[in-house]
């Protein structure tokens, strides 16, 4: 039998998993939606390769994998603020994110680091060969869900690629700006009134530091604690990513894509959807601020967010 096109993993990276947009209509079973943390970067990777929008990509955090293309010819793209190199018979080049590259048999792709950010994405033309569960390839290692029983990508793994590259030209988005966002907008949550006015005033005016206790499930921040006047437990209710729950100790936890499906802590608010991709890209030890906004403002920001993505897509050039 002919060997299938594939990468071999020479170094897995710190937290490399397969992700797509996530799972829908599953949360009532206790299964979190999951999916790419930075949806926008994930989406642009597939669009640059003319892939179906929801094609599974490799998501990595901080340090990505070192991959060797053992068999086949493929076109790749990396998105996010990422430093990477390609080693081929012609020597070594430093790659640009948001630009597609051709890889030939024997070439190596070395995803060294995300710069002043956390997550990046690697997508290949036509996609990886991955099994879906409940309509998605997204991995949730804790629940053994996803390709290869949800395991993170490991040393020596063989990552199959569905097809040989057929697209001749390469593409690029030139004007990607990596801005460092400091202020994040928050919509009041169902238990907003549980917290004292004084402590909420502090929450919306003083800095919070992102702690190292941050992963795909949640982000713990440290700052002025929120004083609960009513009850620090509620009957468990459904959670949506971005929710800011506050346990009895008063220290907020922002729930992220692999969040528990339900939670019994009061929620002071939720990060607005248009700020989510930027929030999860913030490094530990960084100071951020929260500002209170209305639903109307959040909806307007979301429309702008979609506009910005469309603009990036329309700026794609052939090279």
């Amino acid at each position, binding site marked *: 039998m002919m060997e299938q096109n594939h990468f071999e993993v020479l170094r897995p990276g710190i937290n490399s998993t397969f992700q797509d947009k996530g799972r829908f*209509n599953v949360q*009532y079973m206790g299964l979190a939606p999951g999916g790419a943390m930075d949806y926008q970067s994930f989406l642009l990777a597939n669009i640059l390769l003319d892939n179906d929008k929801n094609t599974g990509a490799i998501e990595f955090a901080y340090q990505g994998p070192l991959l060797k293309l053992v068999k086949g010819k493929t076109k790749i793209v990396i998105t996010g603020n990422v430093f990477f190199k390609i080693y081929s018979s012609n020597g070594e080049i430093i790659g640009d994110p948001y630009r597609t590259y051709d890889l030939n048999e024997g070439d190596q792709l070395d995803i060294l680091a995300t710069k002043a950010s956390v997550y990046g994405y690697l997508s290949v033309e036509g996609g990886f060969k991955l099994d879906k*569960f409940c309509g998605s390839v997204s991995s949730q290692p804790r629940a053994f869900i996803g390709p290869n029983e949800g395991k993170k990508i490991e040393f020596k793994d063989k990552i199959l690629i569905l097809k040989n590259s057929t697209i001749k030209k390469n593409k690029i988005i030139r004007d990607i700006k990596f801005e460092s966002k400091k202020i994040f907008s928050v919509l009041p949550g169902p238990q907003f009134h549980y917290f004292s006015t004084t402590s909420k005033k502090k929450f919306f005016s003083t800095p919070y530091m992102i702690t190292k206790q941050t992963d795909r499930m949640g982000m713990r921040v440290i700052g002025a604690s929120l004083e609960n006047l009513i009850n620090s437990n509620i009957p*468990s209710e459904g959670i949506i990513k971005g929710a800011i729950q506050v346990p009895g100790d008063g220290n907020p936890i922002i729930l992220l894509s692999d969040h528990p499906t339900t939670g019994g802590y009061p929620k002071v608010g939720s990060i607005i959807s248009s700020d989510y991709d930027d929030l999860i890209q913030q490094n530990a030890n960084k100071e951020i601020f929260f500002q209170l906004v209305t639903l109307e403002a959040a909806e307007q920001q979301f429309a702008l967010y979609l506009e910005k993505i469309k603009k990036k897509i329309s700026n794609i050039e052939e090279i």
Partner: protein
Amino acid sequence: MIKKITNISDQGIICDFGEEVNKDINKKVISLFNYLKEKSNKDEIKGVYNIIPSYNKLVVHFDLEKNNSHKLKEFILSIDIKKLTTSQKNKSWTVPICYDDEFALDLENLTKSLKLSKEEIVNTHLKTEFYVYMIGFMPGHPYMGDLDKKLFTSRLQSPRIQVPIGSVAIAEKFCIVYPYLSPGGWNIIGRTSIKLFDTKNLTNPCLFSPGDTIKFEKINKSELK
């Protein structure tokens, strides 16, 4: 019925059925859940990501590109929940449980705090017909009730860092089963080997559904798989 509908996100609303936690209220939540799920499957409600029923709340997570809070609130408030009928059939399950000391990590302590013997606790637990209020927290994890008043108890002072898979535990008026290795603060009274979430089962991975009923059946350690 629904007391109020508020936002839980700019892409999510929460229908609040009141403060109380009881089967009657939960059944209303579940019937609205089934109705909305059907409507969404037929694409009569646009852009629904997930609908999440819990004890006395229903969350609808949607794509703001295709729908919005205002439209959804209006639609849900126009529904007469009392008149909803559902084709969903609830099931009855028997769940094997071993109450041996090596699995029932908190049974000894409960005899002191509840002032009941082990046999009394076990027999009371076995007598109860449990109702599944919701599945949540992690895949397949059921929240069941109501316990007999004699077994009402608070959570552990300090939660365990790791609870063994299949542990059956109680707190307040509820009973749960841990389907995965996880931290947990409930009082463990036994162990089951029943698989609550099976990723090999692609059509119906989750064993229980909200509204199902469950009775426990005592088994020996040797019968625990």
